[in-house]
């Protein structure tokens, strides 16, 4: 069902945890749906210098969380916002169709965290994305 790459990341995810003095925090998903992803960003000069995640969810949710944090680390926030769920799925060697929403969650998680950062800076040039939405609904 899952690719080897995905299983590897699921078993040994990167960037697990929280950043206590995060510059941006995004939380997406809904416990009722069985998946919640929380992304913590440390940002310097509009560049993501550290990122961590906490995820309640299936193997795909955990692996996509891990993958998306790796994909955005070191990127500017502008570049990070361009990381799509497709990029995440591709980097994992593909996802089973019924698990695509987990990768959507990863994309939205980053966006939510960036939004939070921008909001804290008083900059609302991006529409705040809807969080706490059931990704599957």
């Amino acid at each position, binding site marked *: 069902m899952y690719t080897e790459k995905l*299983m590897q990341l*699921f*078993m*040994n*995810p990167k960037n*697990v*945890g929280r950043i206590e003095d995060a510059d941006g925090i995004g*939380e997406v998903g809904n*416990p*009722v*749906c*069985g*998946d*919640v*992803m*929380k992304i913590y960003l440390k940002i310097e000069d509009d560049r993501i210098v550290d990122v961590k995640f*906490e*995820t*309640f*969810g*299936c*193997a*795909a*949710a*955990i692996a996509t969380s891990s993958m998306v944090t790796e994909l955005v680390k070191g990127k500017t926030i502008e570049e990070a916002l361009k990381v799509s769920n497709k990029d995440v799925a591709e980097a994992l060697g593909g996802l*089973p169709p*019924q*698990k695509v929403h987990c990768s959507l969650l990863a994309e939205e998680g980053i966006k939510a965290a960036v939004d939070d950062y921008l909001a804290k800076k008083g900059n609302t040039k991006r529409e705040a994305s809807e969080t706490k939405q059931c990704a*599957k*609904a």
Partner: protein
Amino acid sequence: MQTMNRFVYLDHSATTPVDQKVLEAMLPFFSMDFGNPNSLHAWGRKARQAVDQARDEVSRLINAEPSEIIFTGGGSEADNIAIKGVALAKKDKGRHIITSAIEHHAVLDTCKWLEKEGFDITILPVDEYGTIRPEELRKAIRPDTILVTIHFANNEIGTVQPIEQLGNICREQDVLFHTDAVQAAGHIPIDVKKLPIDLMTMAAHKMYGPKGVGALYIKKGVKIVPLIHGGGQERGLRSGTENTAGIVGFGKAAALASDRLAKGEPEKERNLRDRLIDGILEKIEDAMLTGHRTERLPFHASFCFHYIEGESLLLRLDALGIGASSGSACTSGSLEPSHVLLAIGLPHEIAHGSLRLTLGKDTSEEDIDYVLENLPKVVESLRVMSPYGKRG
């Protein structure tokens, strides 16, 4: 994470390995005594004898008459034959059928389909342990009720139903009573001469027999309309060339199950299972047993662990060589966690963290030790990742 050093299969509610003795009994019927039981020649007669013997063995497991057993292509098929068969046979008498909220889909979806076809279905609720209250059944029966179908024991949470009381209510009201005993048969004693049961479903592969063969007990005198028409095999109630090897395997599995029940072996399984339950509840915080504590299948343990999700849990266990299952929505790719966990009143977020561990006759103390050593670590490792996890 520690390297895998053991294979521990704890998913016997999903399916069981075929017992070596069962396989040995089956083997001659593939390539040697391969005849069609409906043929008159020597090959056919040998096959017919074997099917007859298997029917004897299966009937003896539940104290039925051989003529009250028909073989089917599995448990789901037997459920469908029973429910649709009674519905069609009795549709002129009434169109009301009663079932419960925690039936297997083979029963529930069959009832839902009948509903679309003009039948009226009442779905009884269950209490927090997954028990159907006899009073609820009594209240639900109407003059046009033709069938009550309630399972003997639940596959997800292991709860055994008060079958005698439920069946007696049906008898009093002259309503047919079908029970899906796929999980119970072969594991707890069932005597259809003593219990008020009219139809009962069994499946070989849940009692160390082969997949693809089931049986339906139909009490003498109970009439049903066949679901599969054709050559008239199985008293015209399930046409098609008999799966001789599979049926022989079922017969042997039933005979071995009768022996195990007579020797009280399920009690040993129960003790081991209790050690597993107690160990898990002791070692893991924020864990709960699902289903009834005592009125449950002897080999069955099921839990919910807060803050984590079932699929991750079972895949991490799989990586350690432990085979388990979960009723989480994510394991099935569906939106909703199992209907059983919701029906016993669990909130979604807790139902997502469900785990089922079902023991087998060959499960050892060491297997249980291995799970008790590893499961707490796995739960902890996932909780560390969870935004909800308590941290020390």
